[in-house]
């Protein structure tokens, strides 16, 4: 029973294929099976995005002692629909001086990577769109291109604020990309392969990597850099509303803005999905169907992100950079060291040793980065 | 999927020539660097195309591509730094206006 529920989606696909098989030639059937998967992803992506926006607004609302959107439909459930309609109906303004090609290209190229990434995430047992041997690496490759497209959007709109937003986005994403990659490496070290399915299988039966010392640090690292990659909350300098209006997508309106919005949330979802697959055991769960576990864990992580958004103030640029280069990067390297040790040593010793190394390193990094209180500023002309 | 290798080679040579054309005809220094990147990629494709049919150690071709990419990155970095410096000093990066190397 459980297994059927677990494999419900795969069976559904199979049913559809069986229905169509007598009518269509054999090669067509392959196309159709691929097509089905693509369609489900394309539908699942935006739907998740819409309801995430709703969830976020409700959640932050609750945090700020107010209800979130509850006018459209029961408890505001139709709010995303109304947003969508609003987005479609809004006039799509293209600035006169803007570079039409780049401006038009912006939103398209941003959405593609966030969609592509879904092909690598294992939603459930045997529910992975395409099991690439370089799964994780594919994810990072595609993610890293997003910096370029964001900059294209920023540059295309020929606007100072968008340019500033673009520059900040590029700087941030480039500097957080390295710790992100390094935080994944321990997991790969242990698993020995890039494919996400292998990683999830390696975390069989509550052997989640997060319970290992390096796993915990890796999880935290990956999660923080993930948030930064997605330009969410504490690291949302690129579209820091208060300073530079909407950052790189100020000049966009209507559907293009909707695409950016969707890309952002989809990225958020994919990052948290990836964190769960690598460190929280993906769809590994005792009794519930695999995909249910997967969505629960992802949902927890996304709620944490939203929690960040509700609580953390925006970081200054130098703090942002400093945190990445002086904090996360050294920790990632040491984590890599600890993981290597953990892999080579036998059970009791490796945990203890790596745990000590990591705690000591965290303390050291904290001490090293503690800035001496800034000298009291001397104002030559202004009065105290 | 078997693709005859000479097709790939023809493709890469054309790609290389396009890059070369870009390098020769463009006035903007950055444009030249871009064209050079294209040329380098053409070469990398060649590497990969040949690496498959290289019996003894198939992965060597790919390793060389990796090194090539890294070095391309290095050259791009230095090249652009130089271009920026020229821009800052000469206020122009049009190669026909830069003739410091003239005797």
């Amino acid at each position, binding site marked *: 029973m459980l297994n059927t529920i677990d494999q419900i989606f795969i069976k559904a696909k199979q049913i559809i294929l069986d229905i169509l098989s007598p009518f269509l030639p054999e090669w067509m059937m392959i196309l159709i099976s691929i097509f089905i998967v693509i369609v489900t992803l394309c539908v699942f992506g935006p739907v998740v995005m819409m309801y995430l926006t709703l969830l976020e607004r409700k959640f932050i609302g609750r945090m700020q002692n107010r209800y979130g959107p509850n006018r459209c439909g029961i408890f505001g459930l139709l709010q995303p629909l109304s947003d969508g309609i609003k987005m479609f109906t809004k006039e799509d303004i293209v600035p006169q001086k803007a*570079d039409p090609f780049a401006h038009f290209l912006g939103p398209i190229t941003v959405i593609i990577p966030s969609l592509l990434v879904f092909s690598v995430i294992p939603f459930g047992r045997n529910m992975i769109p395409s099991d690439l041997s370089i799964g994780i690496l*594919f994810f990072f490759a595609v993610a890293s291109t997003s910096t*370029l497209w964001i900059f294209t959007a920023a540059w295309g709109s020929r606007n100072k604020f968008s340019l500033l937003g673009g520059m900040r986005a590029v700087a941030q994403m480039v500097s957080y990309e390295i710790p992100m990659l390094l935080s994944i490496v321990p997991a790969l070290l242990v698993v*020995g392969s890039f494919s996400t399915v292998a990683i999830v299988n390696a975390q069989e039966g509550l052997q989640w990597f997060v319970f290992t010392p390096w796993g915990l640090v890796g999880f935290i690292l990956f999660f923080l850099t993930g948030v930064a990659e997605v330009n969410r909350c504490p690291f949302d300098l690129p579209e820091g509303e208060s300073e530079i209006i909407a950052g790189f997508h100020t000049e966009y309106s209507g559907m293009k803005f909707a695409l950016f919005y969707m890309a952002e949330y989809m990225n958020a979802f994919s990052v948290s999905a990836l964190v769960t697959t690598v460190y929280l055991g993906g769809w590994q769960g005792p009794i519930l169907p695999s995909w249910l576990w997967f969505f629960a864990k992802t949902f927890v992580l996304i709620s944490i992100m939203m929690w960040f958004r509700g609580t953390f103030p925006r970081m200054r640029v130098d703090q942002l950079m400093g945190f990445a280069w002086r904090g996360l990067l050294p920790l990632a390297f040491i984590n890599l060291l600890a993981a290597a040790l953990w892999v080579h040593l036998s059970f009791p010793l490796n945990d203890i040793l790596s745990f000590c190394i990591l705690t000591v390193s965290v303390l050291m990094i904290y001490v090293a980065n503690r800035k001496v209180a800034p000298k009291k500023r001397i104002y030559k002309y202004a009065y105290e | 999927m078997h693709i005859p290798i000479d097709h790939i080679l023809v493709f890469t040579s054309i790609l290389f020539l396009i890059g070369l054309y870009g390098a020769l005809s463009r006035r903007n220094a*950055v*444009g030249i660097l871009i064209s050079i990147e294209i040329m380098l990629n053409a070469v990398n494709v060649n590497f990969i195309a040949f690496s498959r049919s290289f019996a003894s150690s198939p992965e*060597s071709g790919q390793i060389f*591509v990796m090194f090539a990419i890294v070095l391309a990155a290095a050259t791009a970095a230095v090249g652009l730094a130089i271009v*920026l410096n020229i821009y800052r000093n000469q206020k122009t*990066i049009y190669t026909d206006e830069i003739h410091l190397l003239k005797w």
Partner: protein
Amino acid sequence: MTLFQFLATTAFYAAMLGILIAAALCVTVRNLFHSAVFLAFTLIGIAMLYFFLQAEFIAAMQILLYVGAIMTLIVFAVMLTSRMGNPAVPQSFKNKKIVFLPLGLVGFILISAILKTPWETSEPQTAVNAVTLGKALMNQYVFPFEVVSLVLLVALIGAIVIARSE
């Protein structure tokens, strides 16, 4: 030849054609930023080629390094020298037609040579996955690996020193 292979080969040739077009555009387009973008497309196209040639790791590397890192560099360069980019100024030499002559000749000779030589088309061996690459990198090519890292380090430091404004 199964449908799948047919699809793959057509996709391969389509990719090649796409790359050529993107490269041609990148080289000829007047606006430098557009040429940078087209360069990105060619790079991604080439990554796809690598996928077709069963070199996924290299493809991922290509995208990660080229599009992620080098493109950023180039785009920044384009941005910093943006004043140069205005379309009014001719972006290429007047007598660029002359360049066609040597290039054409070289191309003709190269291609004729390529087509003439009998390439022994041996079947591809086992796909090369990341693991074999890692082993080779760490065993046989460890010295070049270290040297390349050094070169990269030196180059980057050099670039920083050069580009640093006094």
